[in-house]
Structure formats: structure tokens, C-alpha cells
């Protein structure tokens, strides 16, 4: 393994400022012009328990955190115990010596120092930034600047507290991990922010969502920024309301999006079928967590693929795609919003907690974002469901002098209910043609990403792509990675060349859904399926080992 990345883990209780300590570190690395990947690991609770943030950084692209850390800052004993095995060779643990007995590592009386200031329980987390600053050799002023920039408030206490910790750490391991500067400063975003901004770039008007981890932060981000972005957000009484309101809003001409996790999507299924019949554009974000059912709300898994592909009674075209990185999440959210409006279909952006909530340095191609533009009626008598050659009927929104009738019933071209055999066939044929139209168009898009061109053939999709790429980097493994971005229509036309190969398939599912999809749709039968389904993303070094064994 060639470890050219530096990893920092900070752990403690929820409510102790662990997340803040993690993002502070990530921002620091990014400000140094480095590439950064930040993963938050937290249980489903508000205070206490064990939270940690793993931040890995390098001067080259980095697409995963590592679990072997160079520097661990353990704010409590539980964190020490949890991460003592996670220290890389040459690494060190800085721990809170008030929370446990003297042990290996650098013990700092964090609690005792914090008690010299008001609200000590909230202050302990600041130790993270202080210890990191010392360990990578920042000077005191640089550290104070960092605290000022990141914590903003209560600096008259935070800076002296941090300074005390800094000094204690510096005494033991000051400058132990000097970090090179990178080429330029990049912003950092989570996948959820990328999705939100991608949709906004494509023309989003209305976002409707009911809170559900790991999709919730899309709502939070958009609600906070709605005025600046020129959009409207609302949290209605349920996912059912969200989906049906979104469909209503779209029928008024507003670009609408909803976002949820598996349980919420399940509740939207009836509405998705409605969108199919009424031919209403809708972008749906499905961010997965381990299932079935409530499952493990704050962790990651790729077990909703089959669900995403099988929603809704009856037959109607839909588009499902899953981004491999935070940058791709931005592009894809815009593209899926655009496709929804081009074809009046629902599009599902399938992702996972690991992408939704992980944060990485990224530069969005804002100018390249797709734009959602409906095919509009160009005057004259209007038929909502005009029987066109490609199955797509022009849109018209009320208020209009022509009558515009959207409907859930089978209908004639004007949208009036029908039970006549000939009408039913006509409309089934129209929707059937739309399947073909959509597929034809999707063929023109970049539906599959390929990385590398020699070595073993690996298939992965979604956030697992990031893990695989990082595993190859750290393992120094040459491989060809194929990542289908589009899952429905499934880009078999791109995959024919792999039909007789026996690739390694890597996914975060116990049942091997993705491997099954490849076998069923593309007739590509995996030689080995590398699975992880304990709620945690793949760890690059471990994954590299597994790939090596399988290859």
C-alpha cells in the first residue's frame, strides 16, 4: 500500500462538538489547497453515544476517508477504545486524560482545562482543532485564525482554551505531521448540497420534503438558502403529501423535487404511478440507509436498487441514475431534472448516506449544468395527451384559455376518462413509445463511467465507486472500473463488450442486487461479488486487499 494521504479522526459524544471538529479539520486542509474527504459516523441519537469524523487529505484527488488514522483525537474514553486499533503505523492518539487512565498516546486533561471556562461540556470539542494544529505544525497565530474562522463565536474563551491544548500537544508531538500545501483551494460540499445545487441550477422552483435521514439535509440546506436561491421549500405533513403536492406544483408549471429515504419513498409509490399516468415531470431523490424498514438510519447501504427500479403499479417510463461522486451528484441532479421535464417522466436520483452526507473538495461545473425546459404547446386547440410520434405531448399550464386536464384515469387525448378498448390501447401505445424515446435520448448521454483500461475488470456504482477508486490508488492496483451511472434505462448498449467477461462486482448490499442487475439485464455474470453490509462504507486499504484476493 502506498499511503500518501493523511487521516485525522476525531471522536467523542454527540453534542460535544465532534462534527464541528471534523469539518474544521476538513476546511483547514482544503484551505491548504489539498484534496479532502470527510466522513461523519454518528448513531441515531442527539447527545452522548459515540460520534466520530474521519477526514483524509492528500495533494492528489481523494475519494474516500481512511480508517487507519495518523492522528486520532479522542474526546472521551469510548472514542479512545473505539479507535485505538485505528491508529496507522507512525500515528498517534491524543486523548482526554480526564476521561480515562493514563495509557498509550498523548494524554491531555481536556476536561480540566475546559472547566476553566464557561460551558465546559461544549468546549471540549475545540481540542480537536487545537491538537491537529499542533500536530501538523501550525503556529499559534495560525491556530487562532482557524478557531476564529471556524468557531466565530465566544472567541474570548475558545482561543485561550485552544491555546492551552495546543501547547500541551505541541510539547509532545508538535509538527510531527507536516503537511504539504496543495495546488489550489477548492470548496467542500456534501453530496446532499451538491444534489440541491444541481437541481437549483437546472431550474428548481419548489422543494417538498418530510425529514428523513439521510435525505434531510437537502431540506435544511434549501430551506436555509431559499430566498437567495429563488426557490420555495415546505415541510408538509407526510411524504405522501410531499409527493402529491410536488405533482400538483409541477402541473402548475413549477419545477418540483422531493427527497427522502427508502421508507419515505415507499409511501410515495402511489404518487409515482400517478406521475406516470398523468405524465407529470418530477425529480425524486432517494438516499439509502441500511434496511429493511427503519433499519439503521444514520448509516449507509445500497439495498434500495431493486426498489428504485420497481416502483409503481402499471407501466410507464421512468429514469433512475446514481452518482459516483459529489461532483457527479451536482451534474446528475441537474440532468435528471432536465430529463424529467423533457420527457414528462419521473426521474429518481438514487444515492446513499455515504455520498449524501460525506463532504469532499469539489469544483462544480455550474455552467455545464443541464437546464429543465418543457416542450410547450405552440398554440391552437390543446390536447394534454396528444398522440405524438415520440409519445411526448406538449405541455400547457393553467391559467390558459385552452383547457388542460391532467388525470390519473386512463384517458383520451384531451384527458377525459375512458374505458373504451381502443382508447386504452392508444394510450398504452403512446406511453410505450415514450419508453423508446427516453432510451433513445439516454443513449446520447454519458451513462457509464470508465476508469483505467487494464487489469481486472471491476463493476461498481453509486458511492461505492469512490471507495473502489481510492482502494485502487492506495493499493497501487491497475484495474478497469466500469460504473453505470444510469440504471434505468440500463445502458446495456455500453456494456455489451463485457458480456463474456467475469468481472468483480463491488457493492454495499447483502443480496448482491447490483450483481444480479448486471446478470439479468446485461448478462454479465460476476466471478466474485465483494459485499459490505454492516452500515459502513468500504475502507480503501481493506478493499484493496479484497480486490487483490479476488483478481
Amino acid at each position, binding site marked *: 500500500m502506498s499511503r500518501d494521504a493523511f487521516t485525522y479522526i476525531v471522536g467523542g459524544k454527540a453534542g460535544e462538538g465532534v462534527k464541528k471538529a471534523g469539518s474544521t479539520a476538513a476546511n483547514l486542509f482544503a484551505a491548504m489547497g489539498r484534496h479532502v474527504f470527510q466522513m461523519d459516523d454518528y448513531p441515531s441519537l442527539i447527545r452522548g453515544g459515540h460520534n466520530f469524523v474521519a477526514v483524509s487529505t492528500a495533494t492528489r484527488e481523494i475519494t474516500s476517508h481512511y480508517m487507519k488514522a495518523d492522528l486520532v483525537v479522542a474526546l472521551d474514553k469510548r472514542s479512545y477504545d473505539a479507535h485505538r486499533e485505528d491508529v496507522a503505523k507512525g500515528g498517534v492518539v491524543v486523548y482526554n486524560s480526564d476521561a480515562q487512565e493514563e495509557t498509550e498516546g498523548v494524554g491531555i486533561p481536556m476536561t480540566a482545562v475546559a472547566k476553566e471556562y464557561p460551558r465546559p461540556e461544549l468546549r471540549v470539542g475545540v481540542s480537536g482543532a487545537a491538537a491537529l494544529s499542533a500536530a501538523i505544525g501550525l503556529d499559534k497565530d495560525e491556530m487562532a485564525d482557524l478557531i476564529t474562522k471556524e468557531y466565530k463565536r465566544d472567541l474570548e474563551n475558545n482561543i485561550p482554551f485552544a491555546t492551552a491544548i495546543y501547547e500541551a500537544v505541541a510539547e509532545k508531538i508538535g509538527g510531527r505531521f507536516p503537511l504539504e500545501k496543495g495546488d489550489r483551494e477548492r470548496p467542500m460540499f456534501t453530496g446532499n448540497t451538491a444534489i440541491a445545487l444541481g437541481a437549483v441550477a437546472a431550474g428548481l422552483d419548489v422543494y417538498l420534503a418530510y425529514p428523513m435521514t439521510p435525505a434531510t439535509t437537502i431540506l435544511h440546506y434549501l430551506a436555509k438558502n431559499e430566498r437567495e436561491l429563488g426557490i420555495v421549500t415546505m415541510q408538509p405533513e407526510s411524504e405522501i403529501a410531499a409527493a402529491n403536492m410536488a405533482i400538483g406544483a*409541477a402541473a402548475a408549471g413549477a419545477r418540483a423535487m422531493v427527497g427522502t429515504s427508502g421508507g419515505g419513498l415507499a409511501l410515495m409509490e402511489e404518487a409515482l404511478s400517478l406521475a406516470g399516468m398523468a405524465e407529470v415531470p418530477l425529480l425524486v431523490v432517494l438516499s439509502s440507509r441500511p434496511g429493511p424498514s427503519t433499519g439503521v438510519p444514520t448509516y449507509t447501504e445500497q439495498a434500495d436498487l431493486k426498489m428504485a427500479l420497481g416502483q409503481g403499479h402499471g407501466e410507464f417510463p421512468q429514469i433512475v441514475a446514481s452518482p459516483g461522486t459529489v461532483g457527479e451528484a451536482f451534474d446528475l441532479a441537474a440532468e435528471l431534472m432536465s430529463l424529467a421535464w423533457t420527457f414528462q417522466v419521473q426521474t429518481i436520483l438514487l444515492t446513499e448516506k455515504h455520498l449524501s452526507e460525506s463532504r469532499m473538495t469539489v469544483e462544480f461545473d455550474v455552467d455545464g449544468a443541464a*437546464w429543465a425546459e418543457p416542450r410547450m404547446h405552440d398554440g391552437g386547440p390543446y390536447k394534454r395527451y396528444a398522440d405524438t410520434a415520440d409519445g411526448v405531448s406538449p405541455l400547457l399550464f393553467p391559467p390558459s384559455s385552452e383547457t388542460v386536464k391532467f388525470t390519473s384515469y386512463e384517458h383520451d387525448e384531451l384527458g377525459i376518462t375512458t374505458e373504451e378498448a381502443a382508447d386504452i390501447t392508444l394510450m398504452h401505445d403512446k406511453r410505450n413509445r415514450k419508453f423508446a424515446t427516453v432510451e433513445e435520448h439516454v443513449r446520447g448521454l454519458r451513462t457509464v463511467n470508465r476508469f483505467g483500461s487494464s487489469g481486472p475488470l471491476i463493476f461498481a456504482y453509486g458511492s461505492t465507486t469512490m471507495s473502489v477508486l481510492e482502494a485502487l490508488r492506495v493499493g497501487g492496483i491497475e484495474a478497469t472500473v466500469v460504473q453505470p451511472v444510469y440504471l434505468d434505462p440500463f445502458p446495456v448498449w455500453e456494456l455489451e463488450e463485457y458480456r463474456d467477461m467475469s468481472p468483480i462486482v463491488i457493492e454495499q448490499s447483502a443480496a448482491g442486487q447490483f450483481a444480479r442487475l448486471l446478470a439479468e439485464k446485461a448478462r454479465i455474470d460476476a466471478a466474485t461479488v465483494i459485499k459490505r453490509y454492516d452500515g459502513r462504507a468500504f475502507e480503501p486499504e481493506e478493499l484493496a486487499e479484497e480486490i487483490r484476493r479476488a483478481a
Partner: protein
Amino acid sequence: MTDDLGTYAENTWCPGCGNFAILNAVKSAVGSLEAKGVGRERIVMTAGIGCHAKIFDYLGLSGFYSLHGRSMATAQGLKLGNPDLKVLGFCGDGDAFGEGLAHMMYAAKRNSDITIVVHDNGVYALTTGQRGPTSARGYKGPSTPRGNTEDPFNPLVLMLEAGATFVARGYVGMVKELADLMVAAVEHEGFSFIQVLQPSVTFSNRYAEYNETVVPLEQPAASFDEALALARKTETLPAGILYRIEKPSNERALYGDWNPVANHPTRDERLAKVKAAVGRG
């Protein structure tokens, strides 16, 4: 779609069904609204699924024939998307107080500026007469052959308690008054609810009873408590506006004078906003 607000769809309501009167009342109400400057192109309708909902096919208005129990959400979505629209939602009692109860309660709670007309026939008519939310205890339908074991909901009471700012009752035996209620409801800024007593000649033929008990109500109650008392009356059934107050509508409270559709930005405008947001990080 014809000038008289009709369509070419064949009307398949049972002869004598109370729904005909509602259809006539809407046509007349739209006429009055047009006279007052609310053009029919701005009036959009929604409907659930059921006998009541067939009104969607019979009325030459734009709108959305939605799902059983969800049309109130569709209606709110239309309004949220374009607050210039006047949204007139037609629901069944099963629709509104069975499958879709939560949407009704929340539409009232948040004072969404839509009008909901509930065709209350006390039964799931289109699915052949099962008991519904407003069926009497003892009602014998095919799913309750030994009699309904639940007491009915009182829709007016529920809507008042949920926060509706316009609560009215109409009767299909009083078409002109019903039309007037619809006009007032549409003009009201906020959530307007009209319970229409609509006998199903096939499953709940209560014309005779209603002709006896329904009495016109001259003016809205002076207080919430008085409105509740009116809503609870059983010996006579007051028809008219029971309650009306002013309160900011959901849409106004959420975004003031913004209009998502009318203010939809150009691509350049939007990209500038996104770039600014990316800059803010």
C-alpha cells in the same frame, strides 16, 4: 370543452343523484366569478376518485383528476406552484375524511388558499356502498353487513378545530345558495371548506330527511364557539357560511408576493445564484 363549461363526456351519475346539483352550482358559480373578474382560465379544479369526482370530466375547467384521498394535496401543490390560480377541489366524504383525512386537517391548519367542496353522501358510493367516515352507526353496507360499528365524524367540527378560516355547509336541494357559497369560498383568501349534503339516491337517499332538516343560515357565527355549536346541531342542519375569519394564507406566509412559476428565473439568473451559493460554500 364547451362554452357553457360542459364537455363531451357522457354523464354516468344515477338519475336523481345529488351530484347534478353540485355540477350546476359550480357552473353558476364560475359564471358569477367571471362577472367579478375571476376568469375561468384562472380557476383550476381537482377531484379525488369516486362518484363525486366524475365532475372532473363534466366540467370544462383545467385541473387535475387526482387520487383517492390525495386531491387535497394536489390542490395545495397547484396553489403553491402558482398562487395566482384559484383552486377548487372536489372531494368525496371517503376521500376527504377517510383516506385523505390528514391532508384535509393540514390544509386547514396551514390555511392553504384553496377551496374544498366535499360531496358528503355518507358512503363510498362508487365502490358500491361501503360505510364511510360520515356513515351513521348501524349503516349496513357490503363491508358492514351487520351494521357500522363506528360513530360518524362531523366534518364541520373537524375543519373548525383544525383551523379552517372559512367553513360552510351547502345542500344540493339549494343550488343557488350553494353557488353563492362557492363564490364566497373562492373569494376568501385562505382555506375554505364546504360540506355539501349530497344524497346518493342509490345508497343514502336522504332527500326527504334533508328537505325537512336543512335550514338556511343567514350569517356566519359571531364566534368560534358559536360556529361549533351550529356545526353540532342535529335537529336542524344550518346551511350557509358558519364561520369566516381572516388569517394569512399558507402561501403568503411562506413566500409573500413570490410566485414560483411567474418568477421562474432565466437560466443565467439561476446560474448566477448557484455560483454565489457555491462561493458561500
